[in-house]
């Protein structure tokens, strides 16, 4: 079953074509990587998926709904972690978890999500006093507190130290195992190679390549997704 369908998506800001005719689909339970340089159109594509932007052209369906028209219907079943998007500095960790849980119809147990993301001991700490890595973990936990069928994670492990990164990968693995569909926007090719079933490499608003990490390395005759990415993202036609 298809969870995300994007057909010929285009979005411009003034004269700049941020996304230019992008087509892809994500199946239920799949972990899908959205890769590309800064300005390649990743964030705009994600913003169209989560209903923050209305496409100029093309068709977007997320969980069977048009996110631009039925943002809240989609949001009920989707968890989002944005690259930007802070919390009030004086809001405490447990408070944020509890408040976000109340925004959903059938939230998971927020205490359990907090524990799983190693935030249990930080419950009384104010957001403004958290380290970068702790903030990142909280943002991830908040994306999952609503018990989503689909999670969209923008820059999953940015700001995390290597140990926390590995731990996060394990948790994303658990999420995959539970059947949750994951869209992962990333700069890190090792991460995409480890976690993603398929990846789309964005280049200047278009998808330059789409396939499993193995297919892309095979197609480019390279040894790793990192090398394949460099070949695909830099390639001029």
């Amino acid at each position: 079953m298809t969870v995300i369908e994007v057909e010929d998506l285009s979005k411009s800001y003034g004269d700049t074509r941020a996304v230019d005719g992008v087509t892809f689909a994500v199946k239920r339970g799949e972990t899908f990587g959205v890769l590309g340089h800064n300005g390649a159109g990743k964030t705009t594509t994600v913003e169209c998926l989560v209903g923050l932007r209305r496409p100029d052209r093309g068709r977007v369906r997320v969980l069977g709904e048009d996110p631009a028209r039925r943002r809240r219907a989609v949001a009920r079943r989707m968890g989002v972690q944005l690259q930007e998007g802070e919390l009030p500095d004086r809001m405490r960790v447990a408070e944020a978890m509890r408040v976000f849980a109340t925004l959903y119809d059938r939230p998971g147990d927020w205490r359990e999500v907090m524990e799983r993301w190693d935030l249990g001991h930080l419950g009384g700490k104010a957001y403004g006093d958290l380290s970068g890595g702790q903030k990142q973990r909280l943002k991830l936990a908040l994306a999952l507190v609503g018990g989503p069928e689909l999670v969209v994670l923008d820059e999953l492990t940015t700001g995390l130290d290597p140990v926390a990164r590995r731990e996060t990968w394990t948790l994303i693995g658990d999420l995959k195992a539970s059947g949750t569909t994951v869209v992962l926007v990333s700069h890190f090719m090792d991460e995409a190679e480890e976690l993603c079933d398929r990846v789309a490499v964005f280049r200047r608003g278009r998808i330059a390549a789409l396939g499993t990490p193995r297919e892309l390395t095979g197609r480019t005759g390279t040894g790793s997704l990192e090398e394949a990415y460099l070949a695909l993202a830099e390639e001029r036609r």
Partner: protein
Amino acid sequence: MRAFRSLSGSELRLLFRDPGSLFFMVAFPAMLLVLNSGSDDLEIFVPGYLAMILAIGGIATLPAVMGTYRERKVLRRLATTPVSPLVLLTGQIAAQLVMGLAGAVIVGGVAVLGFGVAPPAHPAALALAFVLSALMCYAIGFVIAAVAPRARTAELIGLLVMFPMIFLAGAAIPREGLAGELREMGEYLPLTQAVTALRDSWAGTPSITTFLLISGIIILGTALAVALFRWE
């Protein structure tokens, strides 16, 4: 309803944790009251303090909070949850109203119980005047939040609008004490209507005209805020 309760509760706790709001909306008015407690006509001062509390919260704090939420993309983050924008805004308003009420009850309580001010003559009218004055201040606050490009500017404009207004409108000090021209300026300020409605309801005869005028300002301000407000 659950989302509204938890969001407004959380906003209220954030206000209480902010030393600035706590001081200016609760301690400062009570302090002014104590400083003026020697005065014979405290029942003129007290309703003004209620208006002042609402102006500080609605015209200064509210736009600063909204400006910060917009700049730090808190609003954007919430836009990816199922919460409706209306719940978000009413939650914000409810928190302000409870905070204002807390300040008002303390000032009013101290005045009546501590300094022998006569209790409100028209409690129902006073309650209505309080709520309408509050909504008026929030409408002004949202207009400021809408036109200010950044969090800092929202805060600054809020202070620049609020401070002269609480003095010229007779909230911080009764207008009777102002010189002719300054007093005249007060005639045209929205907050003056709030002070009048609160004063008339506390000790006097509430006039329907004042209430209608305040309602008019609320409608105008809300329409303006809706037309101008940007989530990002």
